[in-house]
């Protein structure tokens, strides 16, 4: 394996999904020479997920056509420090993306802003409820909702998000989410058309005194042109979003909302199938000098750069920092160190309603077609005496009736055989689900580090995930799941089947691809990897993007906050860092 030195770029982006596209678009517009290195292949709508085959369940759902191959890279998993972690050879609980567009190609499009209190979880909750339990390592982001608001707003306009404001400039706006932070403008597009299931959910939630609102959706309710002049087409409600690319140009993705403009810019270069092996440092360790990457021939290259932005998936960003020995690795025994700290996930549960006579026709769906309530999210309700903080939204989506993947049956039906088949046939068109999207609060015992045993094909240690649900998670889900059940029971079906989240975290059944933390942001270099501008505390010319920045995960899908943080950070690079390169925050 030879190592060749290449000529330099102003900025090298490691990974080319949502955040890579955002940084690249803004930095090239500011005149910088930008190179993006993407481990996976080039992907485009008409060639790689055209309408003629985009809905191939065997290829995309069962055979994981959109995802990182575990043969290329995977991680090891254990529930706690007493166990020996084993490699994940087939994805289950989460599905890391690969290739141009990253997970932004195969996401559902549920595009919530986090609540203002989600950015100040420690200070807000301690002020209201007193000191948090020992071992709960939640922290503030260092950036506030108000500071991020213009960037949420811009990301929503880039994506053409469809929704209804609940709080416009501090004024409550009927029909939206009354708990959301103040918005500077209405959503660029109206909500999607709801179906029978959402109508029943809305009525039931209102009967319970809750405040239902349409889920903010990146599946288009109408044709739209974004601020870059790029067009999106109306969604056809085919229901193939999560795990699939959209062949109809109806789902916001880097491909539909940024790339056609970016790829035309002469100061932008993309190299696909180029996997970054490590971030390189200057001899004195004060700066990064570039990255080393390997191509498909096995040749490796040193790519010099004035600045590096880590835009890979959170798990890979953490691993690259550990492999490159940037920042102090987190030590769960001492609680010291930062890289790999505060790995968080999501606590999912729900209830399925089976109707007797009414058809829900779940095949008419979309990834973010839903109604939700936020009455039990964040600190929207009084947690006094409950023994946990945080919450989650409760939503009724119609998105998932893909026939190979989805076959809900009531309690008491066998798991296979003719009775099972008969039950599927009887219920397939008559079910609705109510899901709880629970927050995941950081705990000292949940973290990421390098595996001592297993390596990848380059002999680099795999990432090791040590994770289990915490007492906060269990109390949270035990409190919220009955609310979801109550809503479900009010929807008028024949019966309701409740899926509680009990027992240890299981990495096999799919839950969400919302892996957060590991490269967290904060106010103190002793407890965070990045400062409030997503800049490494250790190396001022290294920036980090993505949900790895979240000190803990909120009760929402992460993409809007990931997008807002990227726009916030790149704005600071252009307006503060470039005129005066150096640390943007003095510790």
């Amino acid at each position, binding site marked *: 394996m030879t190592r060749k030195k290449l000529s330099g770029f102003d900025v090298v982006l490691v990974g080319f999904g949502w955040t890579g596209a955002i940084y690249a678009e803004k930095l090239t517009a500011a005149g910088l020479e930008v190179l993006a290195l993407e481990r996976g292949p080039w992907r485009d*709508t*008409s*060639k790689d997920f*055209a*309408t*003629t085959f985009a809905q191939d369940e065997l290829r995309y759902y069962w055979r994981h056509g959109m995802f990182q191959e575990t043969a290329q890279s995977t991680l090891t998993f254990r529930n706690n420090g007493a166990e020996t972690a084993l490699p994940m050879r087939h994805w289950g609980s989460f599905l890391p993306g690969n290739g141009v567009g990253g997970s932004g190609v195969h996401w559902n499009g549920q595009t919530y802003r986090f609540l203002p209190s989600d950015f100040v979880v420690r200070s807000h909750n301690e002020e209201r409820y007193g000191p948090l339990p020992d071992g709960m390592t939640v922290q503030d982001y260092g950036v506030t909702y108000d500071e991020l608001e213009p960037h949420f707003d811009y990301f929503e306009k880039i994506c053409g998000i469809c929704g209804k404001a609940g709080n416009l400039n501090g004024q409550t706006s009927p029909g939206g989410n009354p708990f959301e932070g103040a918005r500077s403008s209405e959503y660029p597009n109206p909500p999607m058309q709801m179906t029978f299931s959402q109508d029943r959910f809305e009525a039931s939630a209102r009967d319970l005194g809750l405040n239902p609102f349409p889920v903010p959706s990146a599946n288009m309710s109408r*044709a739209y042109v974004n601020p*870059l*002049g*790029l*067009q999106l*087409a*109306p969604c*056809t409600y*085919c229901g193939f979003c999560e795990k699939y690319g959209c*062949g*109809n*140009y109806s789902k916001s993705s880097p491909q*539909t909302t940024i790339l*056609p*403009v970016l790829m*035309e810019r002469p100061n932008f270069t993309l190299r696909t199938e180029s996997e970054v092996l490590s971030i390189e440092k200057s001899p004195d360790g004060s700066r990064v000098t570039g990255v080393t990457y390997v191509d498909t021939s096995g040749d490796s290259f040193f790519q010099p750069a004035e600045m590096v932005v880590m835009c890979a998936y959170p798990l890979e960003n953490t691993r690259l920092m550990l492999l490159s020995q940037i920042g102090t690795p987190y030590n769960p025994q001492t609680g010291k160190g930062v890289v790999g700290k505060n790995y968080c996930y999501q606590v999912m549960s729900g209830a399925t309603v089976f109707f007797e006579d009414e058809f829900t026709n779940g095949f008419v769906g979309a990834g973010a077609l839903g109604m939700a309530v936020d009455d039990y999210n964040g600190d929207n309700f009084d947690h006094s005496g409950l023994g946990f903080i945080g919450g989650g939204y409760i939503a009724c989506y119609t998105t998932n009736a893909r026939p190979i993947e989805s076959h809900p049956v009531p309690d008491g039906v066998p798991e296979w055989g003719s009775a099972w088949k008969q039950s599927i046939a009887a219920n397939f068109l008559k079910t609705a689900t109510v899901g709880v999207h629970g927050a995941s609060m950081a705990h000292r015992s949940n973290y990421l580090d390098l595996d001592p045993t297993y390596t990848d094909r380059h002999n680099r240690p795999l990432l090791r995930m040590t994770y289990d649900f915490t007492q906060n998670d269990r109390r949270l889900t035990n409190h919220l799941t009955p609310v979801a059940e109550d809503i479900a029971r009010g929807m008028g079906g024949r019966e309701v089947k409740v899926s509680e989240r009990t027992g240890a975290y299981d990495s096999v059944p799919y839950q969400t691809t919302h892996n957060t933390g590991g490269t967290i942001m904060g106010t103190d270099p002793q407890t965070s990897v990045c400062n409030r501008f997503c800049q490494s505390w250790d190396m001022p010319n290294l920036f980090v993007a993505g949900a790895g920045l979240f000190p803990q995960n909120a009760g929402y899908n992460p993409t809007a906050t990931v997008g807002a943080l990227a726009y916030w950070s790149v704005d600071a690079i252009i307006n503060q860092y470039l005129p005066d390169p150096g640390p943007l925050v003095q510790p």
Partner: protein
Amino acid sequence: MIRTIIITAVGAAALSFAAPAQAQELAYSQVERGRYLTSAGDCKACHTDIENHGQPFAGGRAMATPFGTIYSANLTPDAETGLGRWSREDFYNALNEGIDDEGRHLYPAMPYPNFTLMTRDDTDAIFAYLQSLEPVHKEKPENEFPFPLNIRMSVSGWKMLFFEDEEFRPDPDQSDAWNRGRFLVDGPLHCGACHTGKNLLGASVDDEYMRGGLLENWFAPNIRGGENGGIAHWDEDDIVEYLKDGRSKHTAPMQRMGEVVSLSTQNLRTDDLRAVATYLKSLDDQLPETFDKIDAALAEMGSALYFDNCAGCHAADGSGVPYVFAPLTTSNKVHAEDPSTAIRIILGGARAEPTDNVPSIPAMPPFAWKLSDAQIADLLSYLRGSGPRHAAPVSASEVAEVREYLSEEH
């Protein structure tokens, strides 16, 4: 620096032979006017080897004609392979009469039957612009014509039959905009090169003016905008948007026309595009031949195929998504007398061209692997038999012919 010196030298040489009155026109404004006319003439499209990422205007692009393959000339001021030793006079003769600097007849793939409408001032301006480009040394490949077409004298016979050397004469009964539009359409834009039907010798047929023509198995549709015309349902704004933005609510330019919009018309002034629209909208047409409704069984088959394969983008009722996915019920491609373009797009897919104003690149995927000849024929017969105007059904053998053509790496 070297480039500046060359340009100055060329300028000086030209000055010494030119009449004093022209000296002023070597200035910025003449080059700028030349650039505009070069853009209008879409010279770059044919004179750049786009398929092989050739340098702009350096020629060498292969163009398939019914008579053989012809390669375009190098228009850069390279002394040996380009126009470096040409005079303005030579250039005027080429555009005005179809004769090169050595007196040889040019093949009429070069649209001098259109360019002849331009004045000497126009061609001088284009020449001044081309001479300002960086010289590129690039030999033109030999044309691949069978005997006797490989003898250039055969072109002189063609010209005697079909070519008239005349400048544009305005029609005093029409508005300035109409006259400007007609000059652009028939002159530099040379719309008729594709959109007017050709006789067996490749010359435009007067009766077929802007009623559509076949080129490389694309049917360039009827673009007469008056009563009964192919774009009678487009208004002037639609035409301007289409040529400026590369989108209208009716359709988007793709493939060859996409190239025209991206390299040529999007760079034109809106008043010129509006003049083009004014002129096209004045062209009435005769009532097209009418066909009976297709029978119920075929309609059912076609409509089922449509619903499964097309409705997702083009909408269940064929109304499309204006500006994104073309409405099919009023499409002048679907309902064209010659269904080649529709067949070709279904088989091979098509990609909209990005423009400065609309950078999106929506594409339709190919269905060749998914639909049989008979299915495509049924689908098209259904579409052509519905909507406000009915066109003749399509047969499976017509689809098979285009499939065969495409399989030969076109």
